[in-house]
């Protein structure tokens, strides 16, 4: 995934679109993250200003949602589903295998692929019946 380096002008342009919508704070944060890959500290003041709320309010929303990040994502963004349906088909063993293989990943709760678990998401590509091998193979593609 490629993101654009932080630019105040680009951010302001994005915010001019989101801030006029009803309930603008979350969608503004989401727009910034989609564009730049994360929400830089510098964006918080801009969002507060554009949405006419306090910095504290923006910060409160930013910290509530687990999708929102304040640092750039890793180049390979690996998310492993660790919810019940994937547990039942070995997500715990998969996690162990990935740790042994030295692969960094995030835990996620359900991708809606629960009949074809374990589910792993690599850079937004969803994999079903995932194994250490299939994940490593995908990483090397």
């Amino acid at each position, binding site marked *: 995934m490629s993101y654009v380096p932080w630019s105040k002008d680009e951010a302001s342009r994005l915010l001019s679109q989101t801030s006029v919508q009803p309930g603008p704070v979350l969608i503004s944060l989401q727009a910034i993250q989609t564009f730049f890959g994360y929400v830089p500290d510098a964006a918080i003041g801009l969002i507060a200003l554009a949405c006419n709320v306090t910095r504290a309010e923006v910060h409160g929303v930013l910290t*509530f949602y*687990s999708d929102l990040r304040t640092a750039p994502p890793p180049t390979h963004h690996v998310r492993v589903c660790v919810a019940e349906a994937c547990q*039942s*088909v070995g997500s715990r063993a998969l996690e162990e295998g990935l740790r042994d293989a030295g692969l960094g990943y995030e835990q996620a709760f359900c991708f*809606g692929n629960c009949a074809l678990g374990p589910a792993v998401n690599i850079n937004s590509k969803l994999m079903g019946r995932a194994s250490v091998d299939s994940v490593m193979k995908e990483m090397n593609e």
Partner: protein
Amino acid sequence: MKTYTVYVPSDSASRSVGAEAVAERIEFEALKRKVHVILVRNGTRGALWLEPLVEVETELGRTAYGPVCVYDVPSLFDAHFYEGATHRLSLGLTDNIEWLRSQDRVTFARVGITDPLSLRDYEEHGGFTGLRKALKMEPMEIIYELSSSGLRGRGGAGFPAGIKWRTVLQSGSEKKYVCCNADEGDSGTFADRILMEGDPFTLLEGMTIAGITVGADEGVIYIRSEYPDAIKTMERAILIAREKGWLGQNVLGSSHAFNIRIRSGAGSYVCGEETAMLESIEGKRGVVRSKPPLPAIEGLFGKPTIINNVLTLSSVPAIIADGSDSYQKRGVGRSLGTQVFQLAGNVSRGGIVELGFGVTLDSLVNEYGGGTRTGRPVKAVQVGGPLGAYFPPSSFNISMDYESLLEAGGMLGHGGIVVFDDSVDMLEQAKFAMEFCAEESCGKCTPCRLGSTRGAELLGLMAGGINIEGNKKILLDICEVMTDGSLCAMGGLTPLPVKSAMLHFESEFSSKKGELR
């Protein structure tokens, strides 16, 4: 030259097991062999265990092959599968596949059959019949139909849809909203996603009927961010509907205005709770609101709001089109119509099973599901998502309807069924339920916020064999406080998986276990 129509699903589950590569290879081989193939990307039929499921149009009907791997494609062409010829992967006519044939597809009638974004397909398969009819009806007539159909909320609480709609209709406000809850956070559920990816216009039609009934001109679909494909498909469907003048100032040429927009979630389970969802749509932290006021009276931006699950709203067009009688003659007791069950986890034949309420859990797990995928004995199933109860095979004769499940100490939730084989550690599952609650709690009330953390700690101690009986007592106390003292079902129902595991798998929570470790 003869043309052949070939179907390869494009939904995200099918693609997660290689449907995209299969589709590409079919196009490649067709070109190479000069076979004129029209490739349609349908939704999944819901038989996820057969995905990627390839179908071809023949004189007798659609013929199926599956599960197809990209390496099978050349041999399928060698065998002339495009003419419906037999092959190692032949499944015969799709309509004759027993797993599908025996289902009663009402809400999912079109899913997997049509091209999701083709309005022509949609109309040819009965789309718009409900909306056209509704435009000629009085609001109270529509609500009467809905109430007589027996339709209850499919998101979890099972509240009668007709009563909710009537409350919004009768609330005196110029501005009203229709909100569709597509947060589908429960592990083991995927019906909302498959419907949105496979038949998006049905949901738009259901929401539009809701809008014209109660006098709302704006709809919002709140879709979780884990579903990027559903978001994309719904966005495109909305654009198409607008272009064709179905959504907009004059719905199908009538005097009703209705628009729909999409809001994406941001990775929070509790935002599936309806008032937390409203907060999230308003751009705030997803903290649960105290009720009253009900959202039907003061909902989104303080205005009267219908909040319904994807499946609830998507059942409406068929109910209005075919009449409430046809719907309510399905099901049992006060659970009328069909339920879209989802078979998930360690199950041999997982996917969507839509049937009238009242089918047994055994039939779903063993007949449709075919037991576990690993081939080991079934030890437990969790019904109704992370807040639902665990059941052992000895209670598989439960009738799957709202009341029977309550009586059995569980709940139907969104209709997900997660199967576990005999390798599952029930204490570990109980601990996970508490951890999940601790992780996803909105933090507003103490029993949920602290009880879940403390509960997970206690189960951790018990797993280590420490003071098992003593800790069990404290744990049960905490469960009681959570059940009675939580503001919403997050904290209120987390004790359900914990206590059901303790009840049905008692030996795993006894001191013997500690000694064994």
